[in-house]
């Protein structure tokens, strides 16, 4: 059969089957035509599903919601189940039934974890929830320090660190005892600049955080890092040790303490700490790198080689669609 003949047979089949024709129109996005064809075969269960999907897509959510709910809960072929779920979640969000939509989206994410449409609708749902919550916060508690904190966090995500710092300062002025604000301010200061004055300012903020919450291992670690940069080695070491004591599951602190042990030529202790860090974060290049160096320094060549292999594996660029695309660009033959 020639391709032209095959196409002719297919068209003849479609013209004789309104369900098939309706599904084809739905897939093309011509919902008006789809509806006309699908309504002609109310007894065809597949046509009924696509008719519900068509109505959902054309704004009749309230009318088809019960039908979509029933169909999503029942066993269906996987493709229909997915399409029904997506339409149902979209309709529930339009109808402001957010709790129900959240449950359907969770189910979709679980059933189709790598599906772009499911992930997109999930992102939409959470973005809307975030926007609504912010709106309520600004409406109902406009003078709360949380308003400034949230504004600062938004500025941070936009890379506007000076504005973020100003908002964190207002939040601190409004609630000086709130934890995490000094830490976040210190971090924003460091994002803005690493010059000596900024470092010292950030160190003061992290120290202020520690005076509010002496058990904050991350603030301890930040203070230690700045002190190390300021060449205050002894003071830095004490803060690194304290960070690791506070949080024995804090890989960065373990790595920092391991470096101190290596400097003191206590290689076995360094190795033990770094093995723990690798166990906690098996994909962390920093942990593998430092373990490799500690093995090397301890004269344990075979283990150092083993870590080198692990590190090289982690450092390979991810293979994927984008990488392949770039490879194709790169390998295109130069013009003569």
């Amino acid at each position, binding site marked *: 059969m020639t391709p032209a003949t095959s196409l002719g047979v297919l068209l003849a089949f479609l013209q004789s089957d309104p369900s098939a024709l309706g599904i084809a129109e739905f897939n093309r996005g011509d919902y008006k035509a789809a509806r006309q064809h699908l309504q002609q075969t109310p007894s065809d269960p597949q046509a009924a599903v696509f008719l519900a999907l068509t109505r959902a897509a054309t704004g009749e959510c309230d009318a088809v919601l019960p039908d979509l709910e029933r169909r999503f809960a029942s066993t269906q072929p996987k493709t229909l189940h997915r399409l029904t779920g997506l339409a149902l979640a979209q309709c529930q969000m339009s109808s402001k039934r957010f709790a129900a939509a959240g449950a359907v989206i969770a189910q979709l994410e679980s059933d189709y974890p790598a599906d772009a449409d499911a992930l997109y609708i999930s992102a939409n749902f959470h973005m809307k929830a975030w926007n609504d919550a912010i709106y309520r916060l600004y409406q109902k508690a406009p003078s709360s320090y949380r308003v400034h904190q949230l504004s600062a966090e938004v500025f941070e995500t936009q890379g506007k660190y000076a504005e973020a710092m100003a908002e964190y300062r207002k939040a601190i002025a409004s609630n000086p005892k709130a934890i995490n604000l000094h830490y976040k301010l210190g971090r924003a200061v460091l994002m803005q600049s*690493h*010059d000596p004055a900024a470092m010292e300012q950030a160190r003061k903020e992290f120290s202020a955080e520690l005076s509010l919450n002496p058990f904050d291992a991350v603030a301890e670690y930040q203070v230690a890092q700045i002190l190390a940069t300021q060449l205050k080695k002894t003071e830095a070491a004490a803060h690194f040790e304290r960070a690791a004591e506070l949080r024995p599951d804090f890989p960065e602190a373990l790595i920092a303490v391991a470096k101190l042990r290596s400097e003191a030529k206590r290689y076995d202790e360094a190795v033990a700490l770094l093995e723990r860090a690798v166990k906690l974060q098996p994909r962390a290049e920093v*942990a593998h790198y430092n373990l490799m160096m500690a093995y090397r320094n301890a004269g344990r060549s075979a283990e150092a080689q083993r870590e080198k292999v692990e590190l090289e594996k982690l450092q390979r660029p991810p293979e994927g669609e984008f990488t392949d695309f770039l490879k194709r660009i790169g390998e295109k033959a*130069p013009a003569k």
Partner: protein
Amino acid sequence: MRRLAVTFLCFVLNGAETGTPEFRNVASEAGLTETIPNGGAASKQFIIETTGSGVAFIDYDNDGLLDIFLVSGPGSASRMYHNQGGGRFREVTRELGLTHTGWGQGVCAGDYDNDGYTDLFVTYWGQNTLYRNMGGRRFEDVTEKTRLKQDRVRYNTGCAFIDYDNDGKLDLFVANYLKFDFNTTPKPGANPYCFYRGLAVNCGPRGLPFDRNLLYHNEGGGFRDVSEQSGISKPAANYSLGVITGDFNGDGLTDIYVACDQTPSLLYINHGNGKFTDEALLRGTALDENGKALSGMGVAAADYLHQGLPSIFRTNFSDELSTLYRNRGGGEFEDASVESGMGRNTRFVGWGCGFFDYDNDGWADLLVVNGHAFPEVDRLHMDIRYRERAILYRNRQGNFDDVSESSGPAILENHSSRGAAFGDYDNDGAVEVLINNQNEPPSLLRQSKKSANHWITLKLEGIRANRSAIGARVKVTAGSLVQTGEVRSGGSYLSQSDLRLHFGLGAATKVDRIEIAWPGGGRQVETALAADRVVTIREK
């Protein structure tokens, strides 16, 4: 009383004077007024516009005064300036026959034919050029004659002459950045590798295809490409820029270190049988202390701790630290950037760099020249800018103090600098710095007040070893001060510094002992040399 106290503070180390330097840019009065073009000044469409170019201090006519060579992008030939004495330079490009134009990148020098005159190798995107020095009167392009013509267009960057097999003839290493073609390289913003902080900028190096590095063996009369058989062509997954050579593992053989952009840097260990292997990762010079590959550009090496071991310094991109790899012996290194005092400068994109003892106190200080890759960055109005000042670190017995703010106006001038070379062009004992600035005239940094400390400069001449003595290692003892150095071709960012070795001697008025390990195994000792002069030592 106050004046007395200040004076006392200035004299602290080994009786050496350690006052504040004052660097001034004397390029204009020296006659270096021509702009060196390098791609777009306000925006750059392609990565090729970001990487040029290097500079060189070489004494091409053996008159004892360093001359100046500036590598140029399209729009000008690379320029040679003759040192006329008295701090003046005269352009002699055409009369010397240095005619090649194009996307010039790097330069390295060495007497490849052992005729007593230093030859010049210039790298290009396109075809490299080997200029043979014809008795100091002109240069002849011998690229084709010496079989250095390449079979295709290559993006050649750093280079170094190196006698890797110690046969007395200089071989040649050439780094390659990536495969670049104007017709196939995506335009700014074309893919996620073509953005910087939300700005569409030129693409790469990520996303552009790798190329491989090259090693040419000097067969006498011509070169042979031994990249494959020597192992230099492997690995081929690095974007190679700056090159420095040295005996990093103390086995008497010259190794090669390559600063690589956005990929692990390379340390080719010379096994002495014509073979090299890259051992940078396990030796600790590939990544930073967090196991991350940085954007390596320039590279320098020195025994900055007086341990008798060469450590390696590499410049990187903004939001990264420059990296100081301390040599812990046996060719093993560790990242000492933060603990040595280099943990604060993260807003600069560093290029040319070099250890040099500006105050002659016997401790090698460090200069880094900077400038962003993307002129477009100025649109962001942040503290990272296209034109930036330099950074001067003073070596305080192994710890580095950033003295940039108090070292004179030349350090604080803003340029988008690339190559930097170091040499004492007026033989007064204070080392000067030559800097290539993109689309501006070069800078020539000279100290307006000279340290009272003593110094010695050594010009080595090989007999069995190659005539330039490249690869010779020197130990200088003056009282309690013991320093080591090595004659190197290449280095910094695609640049060539003076082939002579300069040592600050602090308060010592003589050198007690000089031990030279010539490439090939010859050993020589010289004793009781007076300070404050240039001394030529010929291999015995």
